[in-house]
């Protein structure tokens, strides 16, 4: 459903991503791995429109999206989380999710000023839907807390919840397990399995925790210096000479 054809981006002579190819099938869970500075997050920024590729094209279900802005791409069905958590810090947990629902409600300011039925119905619906998503992530009891007061692992979960609220077709997770303790990582693994079941969604994730990646990903893409150096199943990647030299090291 997502086709990435030979995209490159050029920052004044430096090419953090060079001739990157990727094809995602519906329902897949694919991992993007590689050493630090390999260009993994830049790939995410290209997919979500934060950067525009200087070469190549990206199509989602046959439609070109590489020329769109981030909010347009999000509306078309690609949402993401961030490596350095980007929550709406001073807002409550449930408001964080409600913001992401904004494209699914449409009452106007006038509807709000007169407190009419349309406003009340839509806010009611929004509240219920937002609570449903929070409950999936066991965040229901924190709904009215300020999001910056959540523990780290829960902040990461909230970011995933917020990304899912936009009803995406493809979810991009940028190091979802970074900074988590083993217990939290274990929970995250279960959560990801759960959302795949519930939301019928395609996931592409970046992660450095190899146990985590090898366990949940069906397919891996390895990049180094912006270029793909290997593709394949976790098992193939584990024994790939080039990947071992570039990234995994002899011990793995």
């Amino acid at each position: 459903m997502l086709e990435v054809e030979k995209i490159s981006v050029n920052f004044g002579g430096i090419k953090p991503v060079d001739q990157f190819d990727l094809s995602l099938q519906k329902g897949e869970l694919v991992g993007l791995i590689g050493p630090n500075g390999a260009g993994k997050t830049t790939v995410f920024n290209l997919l979500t429109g934060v950067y525009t590729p200087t070469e190549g094209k990206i199509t989602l279900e046959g439609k070109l999206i590489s020329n769109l802005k981030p909010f347009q791409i999000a509306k078309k069905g690609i949402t993401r989380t961030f490596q350095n958590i980007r929550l709406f810090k001073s807002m409550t947990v449930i408001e964080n999710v409600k913001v992401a629902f904004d494209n699914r409600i449409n009452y106007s300011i006038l509807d709000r000023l007169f407190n009419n039925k349309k406003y009340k119905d839509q806010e009611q619906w929004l509240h219920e839907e937002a609570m449903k998503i929070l409950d999936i992530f066991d965040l229901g009891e924190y709904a009215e807390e300020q999001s910056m007061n959540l523990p780290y692992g829960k902040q990461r979960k909230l970011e995933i919840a917020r990304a899912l609220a936009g009803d995406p077709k493809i979810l991009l997770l940028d190091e979802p397990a970074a900074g988590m303790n083993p217990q939290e990582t274990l929970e995250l693994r279960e959560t990801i399995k759960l959302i795949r079941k519930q939301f019928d969604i395609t996931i592409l994730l970046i992660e450095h925790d190899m146990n985590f990646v090898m366990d949940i990903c069906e397919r891996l893409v390895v990049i180094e210096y912006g270029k793909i150096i290997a593709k394949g199943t976790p098992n193939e990647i584990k024994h790939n000479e080039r990947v071992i030299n570039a990234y995994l090291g002899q011990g793995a």
Partner: protein
Amino acid sequence: MKSNTTTKFLAISIITYAILAACMETGVSNGYISGIIVSILINIIMAVSLAFVTGYLGELVLGHAGFMGIGAYVSAIITMNMDLPMFIEFPLAIICGGIFAALVGILIGIPALRLRGDYLGIITLGFGEIIRIVLNNLKITNGAQGLSGVSSYSNFTITFIVVILTIVVLYKIINSRQGRVVVAIRENEIAADCVGISTFYYKTMAFSIAALFAGIGGGLYAHYHTVINPTSFGFTLSIEYLIIVVLGGMGNLFGTILAGIILGVLNEALRGFSEYRTIVYSLVLIAIMISRSKGITLQTIKSKFNIKLPTKKQRQEFASKGV
């Protein structure tokens, strides 16, 4: 859901109105004091509208007085050139002034809001000055002499009603999906963008709503002072409004209103210091900012005076226990 707060607010404002009106009727407050009260009320309109862009959207705007000037001139020109009864032409003029200011706001917002932070501040400062200079050079605005003999339509009651309406409307907008998105943009623009929010659209919207109310405030100003000239709407006035917003606390409507009142009173109370007034005023500002950098909130007042109210959780517990 939040209509409770609105009712409470309306009750408080009716009481405030009754007290102030009674003072004026019985002669406890003279014309001088009434004048200060109206000025403070207009300042509140300007400050809460600026608070919407600066406090809630989080964008620095240094040309708010420019929009006030547009509203003042447009409404004054309308009432001066029309020959209708006051109750028709005055509301019409005020609304037209507001709408015209909002349109200029959109026009300025489209190029300006592509920038952020300090850069946007400088741009709005520039546009504010452009508005002033245009007013200074147009024939219809009577150049540097300005307009005099504007009908004296604004009074305490009308201004008070407009202030209440402004606060209620802004409060409701802030507590709507639009307001939620505006705050989200302040909190993290990239994240808002990546969940499908057209940040540019909402920024322009917030900017023009603020300009709308600034224009309305300008209309009231023109019909209260009856004389307006371009220098009334200069850069220093924009800064004054910004000071109220910052002092009231970013993203804090209640604090902004309170700061508007406090600064208005302070400004007058310091008249005794004559030429040292601005120095004392500035020192007080610095002192307040250092001690209360988050602005004036119910929280800070409660902790300052040691008022302990049950928290929401406690109230719920009480309720469940049937206390």
